[in-house]
């Protein structure tokens, strides 16, 4: 279980979120919904351990997040950046293989897990291509495959559907759904239709430290959607 207790987040010393309590368990597929700038990415980055500026407790399988060493943290928490720049002429297979770093498994095992991740993301045909020579959508698939190769118990995905075409969105959502039978998958998503048809739970962030969480059936009501819409349009 990934338990968040009374969490307060800061972005450059200003509070973005406070008093958040939520628990993500394996077997659940969570969506985090909210207006731009409400703290969705900051929350995911904090859970992934790359944003150390927070108060409150984050418990991962009964360990405090800050007590985990980098390797055992990465074995539990997999994270997909919203945007990741590609700067090195690494091949797709090598890039996905980097997801194996936290595991000290044998080379052949790493290779077969990497191959499986490539297949699952339908990018086997790109395996030997340099990541610099890919389109935005193809690169997104590589990043997702890297996360899958990492085999962490909690998958934190920041807008995983960015740059992906409609057909592939459907495919990858199915993949996340089947992963969530054993793992906990948490994704930031703006596509309410996708959330309704694939996610089991929803966390809504409304700003001003208001948030709601529950199963998607109880959360995706007309009232909540209206509130979300009002929050988003207030900025305009």
């Amino acid at each position, binding site marked *: 279980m990934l338990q968040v207790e009374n969490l307060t987040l800061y972005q450059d010393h200003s509070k973005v979120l406070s008093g958040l309590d939520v628990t993500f368990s394996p077997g659940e597929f969570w969506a985090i919904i909210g207006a731009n700038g409400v703290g969705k990415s900051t929350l995911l980055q904090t859970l992934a*351990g*790359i944003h150390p500026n927070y108060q409150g407790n984050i418990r991962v399988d009964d360990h405090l997040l800050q007590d985990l060493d980098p390797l055992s943290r990465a074995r539990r928490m997999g994270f997909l950046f919203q945007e990741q720049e590609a*700067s090195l002429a690494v091949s797709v297979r090598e890039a996905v293989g980097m997801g194996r770093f936290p595991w000290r498994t044998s080379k052949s095992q790493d290779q077969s897990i990497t191959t499986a991740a490539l297949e699952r993301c339908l990018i086997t045909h790109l395996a030997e291509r340099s990541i610099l020579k890919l389109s935005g959508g193809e690169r997104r698939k590589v990043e997702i495959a890297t996360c899958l190769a990492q085999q962490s118990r909690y998958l934190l995905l920041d807008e995983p559907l960015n740059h992906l075409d409609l057909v592939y969105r459907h495919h990858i959502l199915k993949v996340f759904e089947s992963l969530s039978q054993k793992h906990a998958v948490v994704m930031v998503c703006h596509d309410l239709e996708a959330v309704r048809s694939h996610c089991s739970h929803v966390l809504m962030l409304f700003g001003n430290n208001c948030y709601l969480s529950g199963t998607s059936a109880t959360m995706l009501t007309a009232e909540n959607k209206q509130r979300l819409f009002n929050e988003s349009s207030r900025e305009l």
Partner: protein
Amino acid sequence: MRQLWFWCALLAITLVVALFSGTVPVPLIDAFNAQAPHFEIIWQLRWPRALNAMMVGSCLAVAGLLIQNLVKNPLADPYLLGISGGAATVQLLVIVLAVGLSPTSLFLSGFIGSLVATALLFKLSFQGQLRPDKITLNGVVLAFGFAAIISFVLATASGQQIKSMMFWLMGDLSFAEPNALMPIIMTALLLLLYRHHRALDILARGNLFAIKSGVDAHRINLMVFIITALLTSMAVAQAGTIGFVGLIIPHLVRLMCGYQHRHLIPMCVLVGATFLLAADTLARTVMSPMQLPVGIFTALIGVPVFLWLNRKV
């Protein structure tokens, strides 16, 4: 792997050429005959100098590889840390004050100077953790500061002193005496580095990416910083500021064998050693008996080779 053997062979050939060419022509057989007239020239003069050239070349090439990875800037070179400036400043002061112009005093003053400069840069670029993004600008600015001091010393020095200073500033291997500690420290640092080759691969793709992948980025960055500082300090203390090796060799090696550090590290050692040994041999022989600073030749060979390779890719 084949490239590794190719460069081993090339280094061996370069070494043979270096040992047997120079102002005094030496027949090959003399190297193995202690009674031969040139036995001592080879083993007392040329061998130590060649050994130094190889070690300095390797140190600079690996240091360049590391600093480019650390600050994620292709223009970075080992001297970015202000190391050369710090070393040269202290060394020039030693020459001016003539505290004793032995190779040992030059080595020690250079080493101390570079460590002081590095410590200063570290202090400036450390905010709770090492900030690679701060290193570039702080390093460049510090280097300007040292350059000003060096110019001041040069402007006020006497004619005879200026010549030896200029040699030092352009990089010169003729002062160097073999230093028994250097190969030991170098090997230890390289082995330590090699152990973390996978983490270095991942770090090259960005600090945040590395952290989320389970790399202890702060610790590895710190290690990289310290190893870079030590390698560069040893090179500078031994041979002055030889430009171009640390900038060009890592790029050359990346063009030849990709990005993985398990290849990059040994290849930088080999190519750096070969390159500087060849340049130094030219510096000794082109206008013999006059000796030129090796820094001239590292640039003269390096510029066209690199531009040609970069066009091909």
